[in-house]
Every structure is written in C-alpha cells, then in structure tokens.
C-alpha cells in the first residue's frame, strides 16, 4: 500500500485552492499506475494493491471561503481557529496526514504555483525507498518548458530575478545557520516518507519553517534529494510573495531559533 496524502496549507486562497485540489484529485490513479510500478523495480510496491490519494487542506484561519472551496473540490479540511502562519499549518497538516495513515506525504502551495503533475517526480524516490525527503527545486531545472497548466502564466518555469536573489540569500543563511546546502531552501513543494514526517518536529510558526524543515532533515539524519520542478508564476502567485522586510524578519526568527530557544 502506498497511501499518498497531499497537504495544502492555505490562508485566504479561495480563488485558487479549489482548482489546485481538483487538479490533484484528477491524478487519482497516479500513485499505482503500472508505469510507476515498473519504474520502481523494487519490492517496495506490492503490485496490484491500490494506494489512495487524499488531499488535505489546512485552512489557516482564513477570513474568506477557503475551507468551503476546498471541501467543495473534494478535499479533507482541517481548520485553524485563528491564523497561525505557514509553519503551524504544515505542522497540523503533517499530524493530520499521519492520522490518515499516509505512507508518503506531499506538501504544495495553494496559490497554484506548483504543478500537480510533478507530484509523481517527488514521491518516486520515496516510494522506491531511496530517500526520506524530497524537495522540489525551482533552480535545478534547465529547460524552460512551459507547463500545460500554465494558462495565464507569464513565462512557465522562469523564476523572476527578485525571487532568485531572495532565494540565494535564503540558501546562504540556511547553510550558515544549519550547515546544509540546498538549491531551493524556500520551496514549498516537498515529499516526506511517513517515517520522516514522524521525526520532523516543527517549532516555528511562519515562513521560516522552510529553513527549519531543512534543519530538521540534517538534525534527524534524513536522506534528502532535490528534484527539479517548474514553477508556474501567475500575477496572482507573484502578488503573494514575501517582501524584503518579511525576509529580514524570517532571518531574525531563524537566528533566534538557532541560539535562543
């Protein structure tokens, strides 16, 4: 059995979350298609046994119709009474996914920047038992391929310069503070084995969680693999980005996490 639970942390995302859920649910058969089984080539996948794909949206105290939109699209929804931030939403998502008997857990953003078709790429190394955690990196992909889902997207796969710079700083400080280098420390597209999800303890509340997860991977001796992903940048998802001040705040919180908690 390979139950896959996809976690979508969402705060005021009722414009996009329903569509993201529907696209993931359209992949329903994906985790057990013969192509994956043959690719796996190991005994990790008992052939013929169907795994489930479930979508779990964590509504982080949204003031809009996020929870309703997600439910309508067929997702399970866990709601935070009040807004607690991305880190808290992911912690709730991981706990919820484990209680759904997940074998593989995927996280992706509610704004539509991650292509559900790429989930397969992320979970494969885990199903094969090669690694414990997979991070989808926007900076490993060489091709500027345009995603079929892009639609109104600006340029499929090309990361704006400001994002590149912000991410470079994120990677640098993640390395300086926690001693592990990755090409996309701020990526929200990840996959965990259930074992890894149980070991990872999230103690931060907001955006700094991305770096904290990388710290946990190192701390708990988990095996990490980065796979290239192609982000879909739309006007909408770009408007949801973090500013310079937010970046400084994130850095400050990481320093506090490292030395004062």
């Amino acid at each position, binding site marked *: 059995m390979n139950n896959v639970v996809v976690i979508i942390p969402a705060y005021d995302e009722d414009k996009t979350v329903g569509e993201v859920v529907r696209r993931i649910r359209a992949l329903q058969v994906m985790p057990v298609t013969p192509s994956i089984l043959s690719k796996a080539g190991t005994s990790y996948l008992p052939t013929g046994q169907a795994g489930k794909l479930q979508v779990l949206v964590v509504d982080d105290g949204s003031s809009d119709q996020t929870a309703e939109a997600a439910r309508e699209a067929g997702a399970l929804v*866990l709601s935070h009474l009040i807004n607690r931030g991305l880190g*808290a939403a992911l912690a709730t998502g991981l706990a919820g996914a484990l209680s759904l008997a997940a074998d593989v857990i995927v996280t992706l953003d509610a704004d539509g920047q991650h292509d559900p078709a790429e989930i397969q790429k992320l979970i494969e190394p885990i199903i094969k038992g090669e690694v414990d955690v997979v991070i989808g990196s926007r900076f490993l992909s060489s091709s500027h391929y345009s995603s079929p889902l892009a639609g109104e997207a600006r340029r499929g796969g090309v990361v704006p310069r400001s994002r590149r710079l912000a991410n470079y700083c994120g990677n640098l400080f993640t390395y300086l503070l926690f001693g592990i280098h990755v090409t996309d420390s701020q990526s929200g597209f990840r996959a965990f084995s259930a074992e890894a999800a149980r070991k990872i303890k999230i*103690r931060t509340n907001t955006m700094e969680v991305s770096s904290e997860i990388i710290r946990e991977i190192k701390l708990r001796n988990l095996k990490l693999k980065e796979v290239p992903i192609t982000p879909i940048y739309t006007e909408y998802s770009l408007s949801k980005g973090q500013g310079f001040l937010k970046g400084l705040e994130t850095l400050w919180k990481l320093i*506090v996490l490292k*030395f004062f*908690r």
Partner: protein
Amino acid sequence: MLIQIFVTILAVMVLIHTFIRFRKATIGRSEFFVWLILWLGVLVLIWNPRSTNVVAHWLGVGRGADAVFYVSIVVLFYAIFRLYGKLENLEHQLSELVKKIALNQKK
C-alpha cells in the same frame, strides 16, 4: 545631586516591591536574589560612581560611566534575544493548541 536621590527612591521602591513579591511567592528565591543584587549594585554605583572606574579599567574602557553603558547595551541585547526566544516558544505553544483543536474537529 538630584539624580542620586531620584534613583535611590526608585531603587528602594523596586526593592520593596520585589520583597513583597518574594513574600507572596510570586517569584522564587534565586530570582529575588538576582533583583536584590542588581538594585543594590545600582545604589552602590549611584552613590559611589568612582567604583565603576575599577570595572572600566579592568575592561580597558576609559571611564566608569562608559563601561556602564557598554555593559548595559550588551546585557540588554542579550535580554531582548532571550525574551524573543521565549515569545517564540509561547507562540509555538499557541500553535500546538490550535493544531490540537483542528485535529479534534476531524473526529
């Protein structure tokens, strides 16, 4: 000097308040002694400013008053970081609570 009288009044008020809190057991013994030593230190410094010169000389700073400022800033910075760390832990506990409620809803 007027400042000496003001600071003395302040220190005595704080010390009385601390002693009351210690008696009521809202603060522990070690915490009480930290505050006691701190404010008695303030009293010594304010009535005998030359005593800071000894510390300043030892630290390699010219004047006693300067040494007090430098040390204060370092201590304040440390205190702010510690406070922030505790605040973050508190925030984490709040998140834990919100998480538990969210997980309970499902059942």
